[in-house]
């Protein structure tokens, strides 16, 4: 019996991870296809979307600011950013950038309230125009996902970029 229980819970974890991965891949695909309004529909209206600044300290390998951010967004400010990107004069995204989001190292844990803690790594290729140059942004994401039928919505996303000083003209993409 014990062996079966272990196997069942292992199977549950596997299926959860499978569902979370499928969701994160679809989400990345929407952003890479620049379907940002559709992406917004995946976010809960009470979303907390943050990307704090990394702070290099002598004895700590992973230290982030508690008050300074690349993004500290709610639904309204994210919606405003998307509307701006889709307007005529958003020069930072003219022409629109080419992005490829590689989402890996996914780990998912179900909470007691049914929500899911999902951690993933993100490698984002960023290129623009007829220029040979390109940039990568790398980081780790901690999401809280809420079940929505067979899929999820995003209640919370914290992005921890690996860069101390990003070498990028602007961060005009969602992470």
């Amino acid at each position, binding site marked *: 019996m014990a062996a079966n229980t272990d196997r069942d819970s292992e199977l549950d974890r596997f299926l959860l991870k499978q569902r979370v991965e499928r969701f994160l891949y679809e989400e990345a695909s929407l952003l890479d296809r620049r379907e940002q309004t559709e992406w917004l529909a995946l976010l809960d209206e009470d979303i907390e979307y943050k990307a704090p600044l990394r702070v290099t*300290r002598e004895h700590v390998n992973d230290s982030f600011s508690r008050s300074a951010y*690349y*993004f500290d*967004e709610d639904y*309204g400010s994210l919606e*405003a950013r998307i509307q701006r990107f889709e307007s*005529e004069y958003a020069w930072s995204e003219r022409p629109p950038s080419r992005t490829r989001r590689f989402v890996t190292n996914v780990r998912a844990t179900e909470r007691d309230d049914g929500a899911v803690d999902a951690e993933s790594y993100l490698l984002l290729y960023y290129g623009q125009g007829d220029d040979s140059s390109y940039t990568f942004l790398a980081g780790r994401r901690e999401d809280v996902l809420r079940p929505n039928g067979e899929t999820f919505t995003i209640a919370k996303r914290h992005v921890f970029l690996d860069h101390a000083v990003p070498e*990028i*003209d602007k961060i005009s993409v969602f992470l």
Partner: protein
Amino acid sequence: MPPTESKATAQQPDEHADLLAEIEASLGEGKLPLQTFNDETVHQLELDRLFGREWIFVGHESEIPEEGDYARRYIAGDPFIFVRDINGDVQVLFDSCRHRGAKLCRAEQGNTSHFRCPYHGWTYKNTGDLVGVPQKEVAFKNLDQSEHGLHSAPRVDSYAGLVFASLSDSGESLEEHLGEFTWYLDIQFKLPDGGMEVIGEPHRWVVETNWKTGADNFAGDSYHTGFAHHSIKQLGLGGDDTVGIAGAGETKDRHVHCDGHTTSTRMVEGEEVFMTYPDEIVDLFNPDNVTPDQYEAAKEALSFTGSVFPNLAFLNFGDITDDPNKDVTGFLGVRKWRPLGPNKTEIWSWAFAPKRASEETKERIYKVYMSNFGPSGNFEQDDVSIWNGITDVADSTFARHHEVDLNYQMGTEEMSEVAYDEEWPGPGTVYAINLEEVGMQKFHDQWFDHLSTPRDGETMSRDCGGGCGSAKADGCGSTRTDDCGSAHADDHDPATGSEPAGGGE
């Protein structure tokens, strides 16, 4: 061209002279060669003669509030430790061990009583004093430790908590450098009871832009706002008067050139605007902290944008938000253009708020700052995307072969009816319109004066160039027409921490 011992000059004397002559000819016409925005020779001259000489912003005292707090800071390429020492004094120490030169500071910031060199273990107090030399009795018996403290930046001084350092032993004092422009800076930094403080850590990011493009932009480029940032207005993220077309709105707009620095303001006459800060902040604005004229200016102001020569800039912006459905606020952003190469700049951007504001209000101010400035800012994204194009073409063969010039003639008498504001109570040359580029010309003139004057030269001409003094001769250039060199040589002031750190105690 006078002879010089500069390394860069020694390598290519002829090219140098030609380039400087070409720049000078362009400046005389209110122009600037495009090439200067991406040129290795110009960059080396800037490092040697501008950043090696001028007062450069290091940080705000509120970033290192406690004894032992430190942050790594830079003057162009040179690393310094910005630290509050055990005596509570602010020091700017050259981050290099006196033994073999290794860097001591391994973090961006932290708190420490000592800096220990990882190479051979020489240890310095946070005052810079050398207090530990391993095996001293055997290896360095006669070493005078008091002579081997960490080097301090040759001169360090502060204004309203803003700490500046100069790599030069001599030259005008910080007070002389800022001159009467403090009239405008006071409004940004001294108005609230309790003063201003930095929120969090500064944004830092590296862009493929020449630093002067950013400096130009903050030296009175009101002209770009309505076009480059049209999306902000379109989306309702900023009010018509904040981001509208220059010269076309309801506001009373002015450009001011003062002692080498510039500011651009938009005001609503007769109204209490205070950059649209929430009441909680406005209540902290105390008329006793400034003069009545300064207080009146702050009261009517919707925005101030400005530049402190050479590479510090600020914007105190009102009627702006992160979401059209939320309240607007003001915020104060301070930025520094750190040159990393002819085509590379690290932008540093700090958010400020009154120290006594509630945490909730500070968070709101920070959020609106971050939504608009910094690498992800709705304003800033669009600027840098455009600036990089300038850097690209500045390196072109075409621009070099054909001496392509950029035009900064707006507001000169040949281009437009120039209206000065004779009634304005503040110092400087005051334009009654924000459509002029003479402020940028003055920035370029000062920049050129530095580049064309060898570092050991003692007679830097500081006249303000065309347009200076035509409205208010007193406010512009009066303290900086000459005398930048020998007069202040050896003018160390221990009170400001400018003595070499190791010489103390």
